[in-house]
Every structure is written in C-alpha cells, then in structure tokens.
C-alpha cells in the first residue's frame, strides 16, 4: 500500500505517492507568470495524475498533508482537499509539519552524499526557515536526524540569528526564509546552500515519509499550524478609517 502526500504551505505545489522510501510518482508546480501560487487550480489535477501514475486509488491507503506553518490560504486549500478526500474515500490521514518535511530534505541531502564529505552520516542540524511575510520567519530547530527540537516559532531576522547561533552542531538552513535572510544567517556562521539547491523547496516525498511514521488522526482534527492570531485589529482599524472619513 502507498501514501499520497502533498504540501501547499509555500508558493510551490508538491505532490507525491510513496511506498516506504520508494517514490512511485511525484509532481511539482511552481507559481504562475504573475508570481501567485496555483494550488487551487492545480492541486487536485496533480493528485489525480500522481495517483494514476502510481497505479490508481486502490493502492492508496493513507494521506499525508503538510499543515505548515506557511501561507494561510495555501494551507486551507491543501488541508480542506486532504480532509475531503479522506472523508470521501475512507483513507487514513495525518498532518505533517512543513518545517519537518524541509528538515527531512536536508537530512536526506546530507546522508545521500549530496553534500561533499558527508559520507552518509548527517553531521549538521537542519534549520528549516520559511518566509512568514511581514518581515518574519517560521522556524523550528531540528537535530541532525531531522527530529524536531522545540516548538515551531515566528521570529524576526534578529531573533532568528540569535536562535541559530545557539544550535549545535552547526545548522544548515533551508527554505525560502533562509534565502530571504541569507546574509543575516551567514553572518552568524549558518550555512545556506546556494539559491537553486532543491533543499530550499518542500518536497512531498518527505511529507510521505513523515506521514507514514505518524499516527493517523480523525480528518477534522487536521488543522493548519497558523502560529499567529488573525490580524483582526489591523483589519478593524482600516475599517474605522473609512467609517469616519
């Protein structure tokens, strides 16, 4: 049996079907020419394409979905799709941390010789960093085996660097937030692979791996990791300006 996994927390749509470590199908969609993610129009299309490529729905017994942190709208598209598919098809479902999926990408790069001199032994701690907009990042410390250490956090660049400086062994940062704050991270000795390195993108094959290890949960309990309250106060202020203006 196989696991269908996908993630819509970042601008990149990623879908995979995997059986253990064997990837049966995978697909990636980047944002359109306007720079906007295409999760809503392309997620189900990619899902059907991957499932068909992996031998059909009868092979799928589990669904793993990235629950962020990340783009709120992206997460809601991914999670509502996953929940409805699980509900309608009677599949097991698990929610997977998008940050841990990124960390898993670093781990597999380290252990498969993607980095010179690693020799199959992970020696650096993956530090997944996602761009949280408003000048902030989503980050979570992981150990060299990509196991989370501590909670996912929302941090500005200064706090991010303070945190990164305390991580041992030396972290390797990955994700669009690591790219955005490359200079800051490198100034405190954190390695950030070159911009085009695939380690910066979430890959659904890692979502599948984590999903197979996790316990299944009732579909309606799969929720996004928002990490921030809705910005209702800012929204209301805007409203009041027009009220009195």
């Amino acid at each position, binding site marked *: 049996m196989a696991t269908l996994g996908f993630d819509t927390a970042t601008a990149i749509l990623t879908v995979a079907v995997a059986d253990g470590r064997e990837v049966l199908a995978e697909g990636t969609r980047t944002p359109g020419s306007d720079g906007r993610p295409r999760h809503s129009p392309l997620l*189900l299309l990619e899902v059907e394409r991957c499932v068909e490529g992996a031998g059909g729905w009868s092979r799928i017994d589990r669904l793993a979905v990235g629950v962020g942190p990340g783009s709120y709208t992206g997460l*809601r598209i991914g999670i*509502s799709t996953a*929940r*409805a598919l699980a509900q309608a098809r009677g599949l097991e479902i698990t929610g997977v941390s998008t940050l841990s999926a990124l960390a898993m990408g670093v781990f597999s790069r380290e252990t498969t010789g993607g980095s010179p001199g690693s020799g199959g032994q992970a020696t650096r701690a993956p530090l997944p960093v996602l761009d949280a907009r408003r000048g902030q990042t989503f980050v979570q410390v992981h150990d060299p085996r990509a196991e989370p250490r501590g909670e996912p956090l929302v941090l500005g660049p200064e706090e991010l660097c303070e945190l990164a400086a305390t991580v041992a062994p030396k972290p390797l940062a990955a994700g669009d937030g690591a790219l955005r704050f490359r200079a800051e991270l490198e100034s405190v000795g954190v390695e950030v692979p070159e911009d085009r390195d695939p380690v910066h993108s979430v890959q659904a094959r890692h979502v599948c791996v984590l999903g197979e290890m996790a316990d299944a949960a009732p*579909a309606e309990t799969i929720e*996004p990791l928002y990490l921030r309250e809705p910005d209702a106060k800012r*929204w209301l202020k805007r409203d009041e300006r027009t*009220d009195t203006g």
Partner: protein
Amino acid sequence: MILALETSCDDTCAAVVDGPRILSNVVSSQASFHEQYGGVVPEVASRHHLQLVNAVTDAALSQAGAELSQVDAVAVTQGPGLIGALLVGMSTAKALASAVRKPLIPADHLHGHVAANFLEPDPIDPPFLCLVASGGHTLLAGVSDHSSFETLGQTLDDAAGEAFDKGARLLGLGYPGGPAIQRAAQEGDPAAFGFPVAMSRDPGLDFSFSGLKTALVYRVRELGEERTAASVPDLAASYQRAIVDQLVVKLERALDRGGWGVVALGGGVAANVELRERAGQLCEAREIGLKLVPLELCTDNAAMIAAAAAHTEPIPYPDYLTFDASAQAANLAV
C-alpha cells in the same frame, strides 16, 4: 439529488436538495465570533469554515439519509464572496466530487438567493422581480427563467445589511446590526431625525448606502455622547426608515418599468419587519403577489445554492479539477 456547499461569507453551510424538496439544510453560523469585531473579519471567517466544513457536510448527508455516492452532483458557491472563505468550500467540493467521480456544479451566490424562491414550501416559477438585500449584497433582479437573472440595479457602495451593521456599531447596538436596529427602533420615532434617502432622485435602479452611514456619523457627533445615548431608539428608527425607504423606492420604480406580476424578497434584510410591511403595502396597492421565503432560506444557506445548481450546467469529471473560486462573480454569472 444535489449536495451543495456554501462558504462565501461567515456561515458554513451544506444541504441536500432533490428538485424543490429540501432534504437537509445545515447552517453553522459564526456570527458570535464576529460580534466582537462588529463585522466579518475575512481571516477569522476562513479559519472557522475550515474547522466546520467537514462536520457540516457530514450532518447534511446524514440528516438527508444519503451517502455521498448517492448524490448526482456536488454544487458549490464559486463567488462572489470572500476569496479565502470561498476557497475552503471550493476545495472541499472539488475533492468530494472527484472522489466519487460525480459532476461539479459551480453556482453563483446571487443566483442562489434568487433560486431560493424555487424551493418548497411555496416554490414559485419565473417571471418575478426579486430584491435581494443582505450584509453582502443589494440587488434588484429581473428573473425571467430558472437559469439566469438580469441585474436591474445594485449597490454602488455598501450593502443594505452593511448599512445596518455599521449603524448598529455606531449606536452601540451589537452585531448583526439588522435585528439590533429593528429592536431598538420599536420604541423610536422614525420621523425624529431626517436622514437622506440616497438615489431617490436618481432615475436608475442602483442603490447607495455609504452617505447614509456618514450622515449618522455626523449626527452622532453633533448630538454628543449623552444625547446620542438618550436618542438611540429615535436614531435607530429614523435610520432604519431611510434604508427601507430607499429599497422600497427602487422596488416601486422597477415595478413601474417592468410589468412584473410577483415580487420576491430575499437576503437577510428581508427579515426586517418594516421592509416586509412596506413591500406588502406596495404589492397590495398594485394587486400583485408578494413572495416571502422562509427566513432560513433568506439568509445564506446551501439549499439555495443547490436550487441554483439544479438550473446550471454540470461540469463532468475531470473537467472541473482546475476550477477556481472567484471573489467577484462566478464564471456562470448571468
């Protein structure tokens, strides 16, 4: 038999409808969450839709005694509405429909309000003139057939229900504003304050409510805190009168032009007693019918979306996989 989802604003709704018969119509209102903000906060609404959508869908199916595999199609509001909120319903509906390889029917939310009139207990057939007034929209629709409507007039700024909400907030009456103002107005004199009835001299059928809200802002400022507090019933009654006046003036003008034999009222504002009475007097004087749908079909609900979908072309699997929600009007907008 159609399973329909509606998540365009702040109510999470699912229904199962068979022709004019409503087998289930489940609405989970978020009003209490938005009350503290005096209006719908889009991000708050989207979060609640995601929390509720599966349970509401399950409830609609089980109350109808139906399995997902038994429905002929899954319908969903494509727009207009809050895009983040719409996307929760659209993603869910597409996934449900694709899982059972059934067609998807993307419906226009406003067509839904019009189509509420096709449902039991007293379904009517076109032609009729339909006034839809709610927190999200104010629309005069000429309905000549089941599958479409003609927009005769619409609001140029705030919706009528929005005017109630903002007025209620200014008067400290709570949310939603329609019922709150109506309650306060019962003790008040609608002639106590003169508020402008916007657009009454404009020969068209469009509406405008933002000037009215501004007039209330200035009146409250003029009166000061103490006198405002003492005049709340009069202010509420006068303000309500101005909103209803505008709706009725335009309704009357549309009747002058149209030769319609029936007027239908829809949307949450159709619950307003003064509007119902005034529309009733208008129709009686002209010897035409007035159709009032039950309150639960006036406010946002998924049964009306199913009713619109029943007269909309279904999209077969897999053609809808790439479908998207739209904050403006649906693709099939008419």
